[in-house]
């Protein structure tokens, strides 16, 4: 259990880190200080599609670097989830975690 929590924290760190990077180019910035609660895309979301894609690709790459396991964050599966993994940093972290556990 502890391991899973640690992994989740690690993933949140990665997404927060990449969000800070993406923020540099954004007028409406991701509220990285909210960490998991920070809205990304969709309802309350502040990202447009290009910012979202930039973030997703960056997270994909970092997750692969960190866990040595490739993940795809934008595919049919991700987009057909009941709760969109793109709505917040927390939701995205959870989705990444679920892919890594598979």
């Amino acid at each position, binding site marked *: 259990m502890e391991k899973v929590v640690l992994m989740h924290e690690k993933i949140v760190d990665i997404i927060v880190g990449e969000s800070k990077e993406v923020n540099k180019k954004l007028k409406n910035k991701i509220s990285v200080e909210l960490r998991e609660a920070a809205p990304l895309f969709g309802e309350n979301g502040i990202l447009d599609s290009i910012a979202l894609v930039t973030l997703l690709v960056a997270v994909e790459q970092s997750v692969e670097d960190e866990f040595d396991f490739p993940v795809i964050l*934008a595919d049919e599966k991700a987009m057909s989830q009941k709760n969109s993994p793109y709505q917040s940093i927390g939701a995205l972290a959870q989705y990444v975690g679920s892919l890594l556990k598979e």
Partner: protein
Amino acid sequence: MRIEELQQRLEQYSEIEAIIHKHQLFSYRDLLRLTESWFQRLAQNKIEPGTVVAVTSDYSADAIALMAALILNKNIAVPLTPLAKTQFNEYFKTSYTQSIIDLTQTTFRISDRKNDPLQNDLLRNLIEQQHPGLILFTSGSTGQAKAVVHDFEKLLTKFTHANKGYRSLVFLMFDHIAGIDSYFYSLYSGGTMIFPVSRLPKEICGLIEKHRVEVLPASPTFLNLLLLSGEHLRHDLDSLKIITFGSERAPQSLLKRLKNNFPQVRLVQKYGLTELGSPSSKSMEADASWLKIDSPRFKTKIINKRLHIKSDAAMLGYLNAPDPFTGDGWFDTGDTVEVKGEYLRILGRESEIINVGGEKVFPVEVEEVIQMMPGVEDVVVSGVPYPITGQIVKASVQLETKETLSEFRQRMRDFCEEKLPRFKIPQKVTLAKDSLHGDRFKKMRG
């Protein structure tokens, strides 16, 4: 123009140096003798006028003489370099090749295939009119290569006025329209061709120095490699007068570096297509990426930013694809261009445009920016499919630095920030270990 003029020109230039290859010198008289001996060999091997003959070879005096002999014998020539070896069988079949002359061996080999060019309307017309023909393959990076048929007589007409014989390094491929244009221009104008054995910057610079080369036709990718190698600083290249480049658009940053390194050289951007040949063109003095098509035999018009060309030197058609010409003879080049007065700037091929969520990105404009970053040896930008935006921009980068991928990605984003709109900054980056250009020194996208 009568093809006999080719022979007359070779006779007229007699003592002038025609070809230098592997330290061997061939005068025009030597070349004419070689041509005659090939002409006889064709007859001995019962290769009659109208036969489709593939020539597999890289540059050599024999290869040039054989091409000339095939024209005089009114054959349909299919030049192929060994680089295309894996496709040879497909090419032979598509082009209705009946005889294959392989010059890549030290001894030449003639083999026969049972094909019948009379089955194809374009080839049958050529044969009935007793005109020599030329079949070339488009080096399309995607999909099937198209077989382009030219009437060789029509194609050569544009050289009737060729009169400035330069000493040029023949760099472009033997089976590429730009290569064919450069060697026939040289033959018609009494120029001297220097053939390289490899295409390494060191060898090329060595040949320029040794043989006092005046014209270097190359590709932007090769010129970039040349500058990076530093070989131009270790050789005396003062003889160079003109550098031409085509086949892909040269990035601004490269043009600037060329100008700084070769202040005495005129930079000329060429434009050419396998289907149309390359018209003579002039480059804008201040910025060589702008060119003016300067040939009475090529008419241009622009529709929806796309360049259309009409020319009587154009191909007859494709052997394996529908006729692309409009009823009144215009050809849609598929190239998007900017226009400034009489000058054009090629932005890129429609098929290479990356569409990121409805926004258009030309690979070249992104490559230009990334190429300016210190430590970047080479870069190729392409589109990769990605849900949400349809495509994203991917940059494959070859680095001189020891940065990790994430270090470089961060630096690249910071560097691009002021220079590119957000959607054009590559979302995906990969570091390439191997060279990013093909054997033909052209960037490989996708």
